[in-house]
């Protein structure tokens, strides 16, 4: 017995993919929110962490903030192109966004190498434990984001599933916003 195949329709005016991604981001916010809240509470308990925060590479963090913000701009442009049906331009813009992510990771790796060679490893003190936990978790999300950006860019180039451009852009903005919180909390709180 083969049932009548209902054509997917949406009960609300919001596309199903967007609803799914928003709930996904809600669960991500809870993960980062929990980790950041722990850090903030300890930061309030230990005022002397300011000296340790001063040892982060502020210029590298500031540069990376600019890189991520710029990459969010190209993600917005990709979405605009996808809405207008310009598949190749959307794909192009997503690739530029991924390039931004790669630059961010390269700078992050340089920072880690610099810090580890100065003896500032995760076990050095609780501040550095949190520094590596938060930035490491974020870098993991940047990496996943780059993979997703490139996958969507590849299918968008062939004109497939242009709706996903918006979804991957939403996720990328989230990764960007998390960094906007992490940068002042970890680098500037000296």
């Amino acid at each position, binding site marked *: *017995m*083969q*049932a*009548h*195949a*209902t*054509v*997917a*329709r*949406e*009960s*609300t005016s*919001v*596309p*199903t*993919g967007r*609803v*799914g*991604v928003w*709930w*996904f981001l*809600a*669960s*991500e*916010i*809870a*993960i*980062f*929110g*929990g*980790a950041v*809240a*722990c850090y903030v509470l*300890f930061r309030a308990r*230990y005022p002397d962490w300011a000296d340790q925060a001063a040892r982060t590479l502020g210029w590298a963090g500031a540069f990376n903030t600019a890189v991520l913000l710029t990459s969010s701009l190209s993600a917005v442009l990709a979405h605009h192109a996808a809405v207008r049906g310009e598949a190749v331009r959307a794909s192009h813009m997503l690739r530029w966004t991924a390039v931004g992510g790669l630059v961010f990771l390269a700078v992050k790796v340089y920072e880690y190498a610099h810090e580890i060679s100065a003896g500032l490893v*995760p*076990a050095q*003190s*609780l501040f550095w*434990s*949190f520094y590596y*936990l938060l930035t490491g*978790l974020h870098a993991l999300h940047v990496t996943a984001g780059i993979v997703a950006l490139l996958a969507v860019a590849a299918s968008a180039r062939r004109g497939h*599933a*242009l*709706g*996903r451009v918006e*979804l991957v852009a939403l996720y990328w903005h989230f990764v960007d916003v998390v960094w906007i919180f992490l940068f002042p909390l970890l680098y500037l709180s000296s």
Partner: protein
Amino acid sequence: MGDADGGHPMSGPAPTSFWRRYVFSTDHKVIAKQYLFTGVAMAFVGGLLAYVFRSQLAWPGEPVPGWGPVGLDEYNALVTLHGMIMVFWVAMPVLVAGFGNLLIPLMVGTDDMAFPRLNMLSFWIFFLSTLLVVASFFAPGGPPGTGWTLYPPLSTSGMPGAWGVDVLVLAVALEFAAFLMGGINFLTTAINKRARGMGMWDLPLFVWEEIIASIVFMLSVGPLIAGALMLLADRHFGTGFYDPRAGGDPLLFQHLFWFFGHPEVYVLLLPALGIVAEIFCAGARKTLFGYRTIVWATIVAGLLSFIVWAHHQFVAGIDPRLAAPFSLTTILISVPFSITIFALIATLWGGSIRFSLPLAWAVAMVAEFLLGGVTGIVNGSAAADIYVHDSYFVVAHFHYTLVPIALFAPLAGFYFWFPKMTGRMLDARLGLLHLVATVVFFNVTFLPQFALGMMGMHRRIANPAAFEFLREGMPLQELSTVGVIGLLVSQAPFVVNLVWSWLRGPVAGANPWRATTLDWQCPSPPPHGNFEREVVVRRGPYVYSPPGSAEDFVPQDAPDAERAGGGAVPSPLVQPAE
């Protein structure tokens, strides 16, 4: 998220190969069965562990028949894995994922979940986590013996080299990932795949309960995921998140654990109450009493569940000034649940009750759960809790909540929806034997534990006979163990019934309980794609016994013309179609 862009038929043609149909299936009904049967299998594993450590408690030092002598570390591992398995590999897959997958698409009148491939992925990640939790028992360096709460420093520096702890944490992390994916699917399906004409207030209560449970799970589990990463870092990278010597704090883990752990109880309770509500309405031939009140009360309970966690830590060394506010919120949260239970009982009141087997199970669930709820008041107030904390009084309390939630409610649901799943009825006499035996042995197991707790029996003691003041409690220990054995044996009629009825049971038909919700308006078992025609919802979920109508129920999608009597259905639940 392969199907994220939407706009095309989701279910497509039915797959023909064996593997795509029964193993790597994207059909929500197959995935539901996979979750249900994995959960049931793990329930027997968890139950056997309970048999082993309860035997050690009743007859300390004697070899347990079928197992052998129980060492002290082994005892800790048995207790740890019993708790972990029963909460995360029985209650979660059965109540949330199993029934959620089976019922949400059927109840909202659609062909499948919003993201079928994500749904399949979530089951297989869950299945991998199941293998891992079993493997943790055989891990090099010893199985995890930390208790299901994984408190540091025992879980960090206390069990060095015990890979069981790492395997267990990894298993739990994968399980969380699976249920986050499941929750996203449930929410998106309930929000965006409702049948034409179905507003949010036309959803059956079960769907509402799953929605709220999914949101509570999603928002409470995140901090613990971060906490688990810190735990693994403390174990392997020399950090000191939970180590005071490094400036960390072991209490931090307790806060993160219970910020999730307490809402988790409600994540399990809500679907259980949803199952009971569906069965009560069909059994009493009456509309659900206070439908919107229950939904709002549940939303309030969901919000309150985020600010009660520290009642697990009254003796852990938290600031004593925190005890009063957390006592207050804990006792406050019993109000919305009292409203829900009251509304459920009021649904039966004055109904034209058909005392079917599922209804009997559902009534047993409410009756036993009340005992758990009432004893919770004792634990919730800090002054009383300090006396009974960590004793068998607490053990008895949470088993009086969780066994009704994770055993009685799913079994009620199983007896109710088995005809929908398989197209056949379960045998009612075997089911009644199963119910009576389960109720008797459940109480024989756990009632003595209240008394043992008041006597001072601490929950981590492996050999009560070693303590002078606990020796007088040994007969109660033996009684409780006899209860566990009886409880396990009592499940035999169920297994027999399951196998026999699936093969030979009487054919059920689409709607054996004459119920109104959409899950009963499609064939049993539903074909791939579920509904034979597009569903249009015309009224609320529980229009039973409308005056002037020939039939005592009106399905949600029945066209007005087909309904005997005609005219508007005088029910407060009827919503104008959007």
